């Protein structure tokens, strides 16, 4: 049979981020895959060498729009090791709390995307609605929905008040209830299981061979979790399970993620309960002494690794970032090959490659007048309703009234 070549990307409606997959098809089956990446390369590593450490934190935080806290924590942990700074326990706890909230937001986001890729859009709407609960918590604690800006060298920049702790616990109760529903869904819903079982197989042996990480590896029975193996922040002081599964397919990856939501809930409760008193940060020097350090962090998608070499000045000599998606990409071609074309979107989505979400507030600058107005969500919504009425003759309010 002659092969049909299907190019997907770099810009394609089914992809959330630019990447290029060239699929060679024999009938409906994928015989070979070629991946091309780099469309998002922004030269951040080079840019870090040209900026002082304190600016690098904010730059590194923007490596990813979803696991931003993961990257900034991984980076500053390396800097702190070189500078021999001990983060106060309260600071370490707050880092872990934000880290777990981030994991919940990321996993719920993934669940929605996965649902959408399967044509199960109800799941997408449910999980993204529930995700707002955790987004609101993050906004309350840090002031931002994404790119929290809470980390600084030597600790964190904002404390968690008693009232905030109570609100976190309340919200976590809601999330736990919802998670129970998602676990039921992933383990009992026959349509979902039928769609996901056996799709995108990656055996334990192959996961190890390709160096897969995070839920992708754990779903193949590889018990690897940096939080447990190489504890950082406050993880050595809480008890939790490393979730693994032996399905070794997209179903396994789904089960691992929803079960991990439960573990995150457990961790957050313990951290809030044990939250020690005291300072949240120590003073860090502007110039970091010469040295090198490697820091590992279990991001929602897998292990994040940062290497920092300092030369005694206020700028680093070298910063190396390895995000989990890069580690999982070699395995992707293996998972796609031999499967059906129709499975490709969910298989790619199942390693959870990253994409960004937007802010709620827009700042409008009026050209020559130089005035600036801030528009909140309601204002932005009214503006768009008016715009459609005036320019397109569609009255969205009527549609709204039908609801």
């Amino acid at each position: 049979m002659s092969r049909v070549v299907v190019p997907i990307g770099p810009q394609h409606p089914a992809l959330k981020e630019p990447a290029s997959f060239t699929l060679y098809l024999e009938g409906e089956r994928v015989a070979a895959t070629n991946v091309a990446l780099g469309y998002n390369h922004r030269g951040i590593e080079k840019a870090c060498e040209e900026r002082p450490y304190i600016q690098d934190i904010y730059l590194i935080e923007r490596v990813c729009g979803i696991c931003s806290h993961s990257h900034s924590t991984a980076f500053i942990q390396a800097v702190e090791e070189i500078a021999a700074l001990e983060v106060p326990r309260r600071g370490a706890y707050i880092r872990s709390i934000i880290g777990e909230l981030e994991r919940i937001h990321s996993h719920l986001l993934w669940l929605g995307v996965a649902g959408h890729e399967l044509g199960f859009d109800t799941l997408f709407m449910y999980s993204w609605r529930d995700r707002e609960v955790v987004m609101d918590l993050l906004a309350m604690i840090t002031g931002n929905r994404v790119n929290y800006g809470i980390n600084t060298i030597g600790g964190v920049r904002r404390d968690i008040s008693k009232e905030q702790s109570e609100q976190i616990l309340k919200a976590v109760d809601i999330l736990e209830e919802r998670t129970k529903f998602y676990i039921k869904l992933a383990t009992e819903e026959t349509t979902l299981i039928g769609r996901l079982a056996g799709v995108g197989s990656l055996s334990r042996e192959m996961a190890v061979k390709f160096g897969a990480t995070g839920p992708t590896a754990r779903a193949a029975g590889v018990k690897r979790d940096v939080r447990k193996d190489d504890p950082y922040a406050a993880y050595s002081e809480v008890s939790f399970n490393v979730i693994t599964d032996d399905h070794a397919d997209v179903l396994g990856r789904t089960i691992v993620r929803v079960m991990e939501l439960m573990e995150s809930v457990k961790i957050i409760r313990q951290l809030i309960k044990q939250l020690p008193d005291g300072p949240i940060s120590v003073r860090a020097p502007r110039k970091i002494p010469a040295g090198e350090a490697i820091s590992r962090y279990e991001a929602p998608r897998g292990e994040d690794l940062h290497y920092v070499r300092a030369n005694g000045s206020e700028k680093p000599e070298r910063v190396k970032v390895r995000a989990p998606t890069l580690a999982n990409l070699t395995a992707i071609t293996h998972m796609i090959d031999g499967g059906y074309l129709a499975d490709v979107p969910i298989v790619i989505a199942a390693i959870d490659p990253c994409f960004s979400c937007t802010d709620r507030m827009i700042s409008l600058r009026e050209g020559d007048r130089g005035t600036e107005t801030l528009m909140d969500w309601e204002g932005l919504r009214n503006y768009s309703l008016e715009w459609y009425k005036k320019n397109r003759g569609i009255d969205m309010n009527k549609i709204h009234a039908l609801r």
Partner: protein
Amino acid sequence: MEKAESLIKDLCKAFAFIEGHTKIQRSRRIYAEIPLENSSSLKEVLIYLRNKKNFTFLCTITGLDSGENFEMIYHLADDAGVLINLKSFTPRSRPVIESVTPVFTGAVFYERELKDLFGIEVKGLPEGRRYPLPDNWPEGQYPLRKDWKKPDENPAPKA
């Protein structure tokens, strides 16, 4: 710590040239260097660590420009959270290394990075699209080299 010390002892016993080039920075962080003249033994050391010491996960490869030489750090992890960072060198005048993909399949993208960003030739690297720089990136421009200047600051000589 004891485990790390015995690991270093075994490693030095198997590869004498590593002796004196090791350090334990903190728990679970081991550094070892392969001197420039022994860099051809890199693959053997990696195979030894993978097969005999259970370092089955190559986290990544970090490239560095340290002036006269380029440094490559192979970060290897085992299932107990120990990270061994194996440094190897290649001369700047003729930067050629051998691919480690026969030992660690997942190293493909990490080696492509070394090639694109440092201009290190990687022998035996499987064919494929370049990564991470764009296809129309000018030849001979290696952005992570310390002497690299942004193209606009470095205009082409007039004919």
